């Protein structure tokens, strides 16, 4: 205890430990995130901006980037939509085995991605359990871009479910009841009462699923077919560049992916901020 008259130079915070935790956070982030990314960009910038643009404009690289990002986007959207449904069912209804189903949702998190890829390829290959039914319908999944989509939805699902689940659990049924009592149609209640508070969670899930999908390698590589200009993803192209001992080329593609992902995540974050302002929730 300091004695009375002089004010202490430093006032103890109500929440102690800010200095040490912030220091730890900064060092931790620098060592584990900023330093590797900095090294990546430093290596890539060795060939200059025009060099980077030239690599991005290579038809094969451009096609692979397009494949990766467009399919990731669609897959994340689908995962978000169905993740919302899954989360809704798991939170709102009680049924036998609910806890088991709830646990199953997390499996794609825990599964090594290569195992997921091999399992999906085995299922959707022309002689697989699912593939053998789809093939006669003229629907080829494995070894086509559709296969990439399936793998990316698979790994994106838990993100979508887990980010909206707490919001659904929180949402108040009284509001729904009030809406119904005031004469709103069921659809109107869903649209104006239920969904708006969930939107930030859905967007977070979408962003996470998208980010994960863009960088996904193991699960895709076994089901994609990896044909240049058809089903070749950008991460594979990085591995190929590395096999050619072209470290600069590999880091350049990685940097381009990083830039696009960063821009996409920024847009999603802005959307989130907007939705928070708009609906004033969470």
């Amino acid at each position, binding site marked *: 205890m300091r004695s009375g008259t002089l004010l202490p130079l430093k006032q103890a915070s109500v929440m102690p430990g800010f200095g040490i935790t912030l220091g730890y956070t900064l060092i931790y982030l620098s060592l584990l995130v900023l330093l590797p990314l900095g090294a990546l960009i430093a290596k890539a910038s060795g060939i200059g901006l025009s060099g980077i643009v030239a690599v991005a404009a290579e038809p094969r690289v451009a096609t692979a980037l397009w494949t990766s990002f467009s399919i990731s986007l669609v897959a994340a959207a689908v995962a978000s939509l169905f993740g919302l449904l899954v989360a809704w069912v798991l939170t709102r209804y009680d049924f036998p085995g609910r806890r088991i189903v709830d646990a199953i949702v997390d499996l794609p998190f825990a599964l090594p991605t290569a195992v997921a890829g091999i399992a999906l390829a085995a299922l959707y290959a*022309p002689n697989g359990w699912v593939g053998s039914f789809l093939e006669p319908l003229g629907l080829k999944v494995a*070894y086509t871009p559709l296969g990439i989509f399936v793998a990316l939805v698979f790994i994106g699902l838990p993100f979508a479910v887990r980010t909206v689940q707490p919001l659904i659990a929180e949402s108040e049924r009284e509001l729904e009841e009030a809406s119904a009592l005031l004469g709103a149609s069921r659809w109107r209640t869903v649209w104006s009462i239920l969904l708006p508070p969930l939107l930030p969670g859905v967007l977070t899930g979408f962003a996470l699923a998208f980010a994960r999908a863009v960088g996904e390698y193991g699960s895709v590589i*076994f089901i994609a*077919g990896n044909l240049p200009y058809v089903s070749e993803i950008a991460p594979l192209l990085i591995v190929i560049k590395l*096999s050619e*001992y072209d470290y600069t080329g590999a880091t350049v593609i990685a940097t381009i992916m990083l830039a696009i992902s960063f821009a996409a995540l920024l847009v999603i974050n802005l959307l989130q901020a907007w939705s928070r302002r708009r609906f004033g929730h969470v």
Partner: protein
Amino acid sequence: MASESRPFRLRSVVAALVIGGAGLLTLSGAVSAQTQLLNVSYDPTRELYREINQAFADEWKAQTGEAVNVRASHGGSGAQARTVIDGIDADVVTLGIPSDIDAIAKATKKIPTDWRSRLPNNSLPYTSTVVFLVRKGNPKGIKDWDDLVKPGIQVITPNPKTSAGGRWNFLAAWGYSHAKDGSADKAKEFVTALYRNVPVLDTGARGSTVTFAQRALGDVLPAWENEAFLVLDEFGRDKFEIVVPTLSILAEPPVALVDANVDAKGTRKVAEGYLKFLYSDKAQAIFAKHHYRPSKAEAAKPEDLAALPNLKLFTIESLQGNWDDIQKNNFDSGGLFDQISKR
């Protein structure tokens, strides 16, 4: 109370760390009493080197009284070369294609560039070739390379960018067409047509084998000879059969000492002994047993040799010159494979 217990806990953590560290030291001491060799090899040689390494350890013990333990690391040939470049302390490398060892020599200087001339037979203790695996009864009637470019035939082969096996397949097809028509343009057309028939490019030879054998995709799998025999043994001779083309490539998976590493580790004598052992009668017989073509045929069991069909083999160097050019013209960025993949 609390202020007293904290330094105590800290001390116990330090003590635990010290004890743990000492434990690790004694553990590594115990291991290093036995000489360790690391052989960095490519993917389909797992079964082979397990047997070779045991045979070498026995032989070395009998000759010198020294215990030696050879560890082997396996993976795609190009990826393995990269781990050596990035600093894994391999004593010897036994890779799938000469250009991968060239890449190590060029990037790190740990291996002299004339490494091929330092061991007998161009540093090739054994060779192999590319044959075709087809489904039992050969429903598509595949006899030779020409059948692989026919419309409607599906060929399963790995990506030559990532797989040594894939590169041998590519070079074999190119060489066949070149031998037939005598022109590089025709050969380019030929491989273009062939790769149009490829529905899946796996990243490694084993991946392609799985796609063909387990996923039942495709009509023909051009494969390392030993890999084709392995499928017959694994999946049953009633499901697949081997078709031998009239002409194929002499696949050359070479071996080399990593000089800088063995000198740093003091393992030069054992590592050189290991490479020499690969040319011994005992090792040669093991190569033949695993369906590789031994460089010393007389050392192998006659029945193992009889299983390896007679066919005309060409070396790619006789057609395309040195390995620097072969790698650059075909597989590097903008090379032949990139050109024919454009659609």
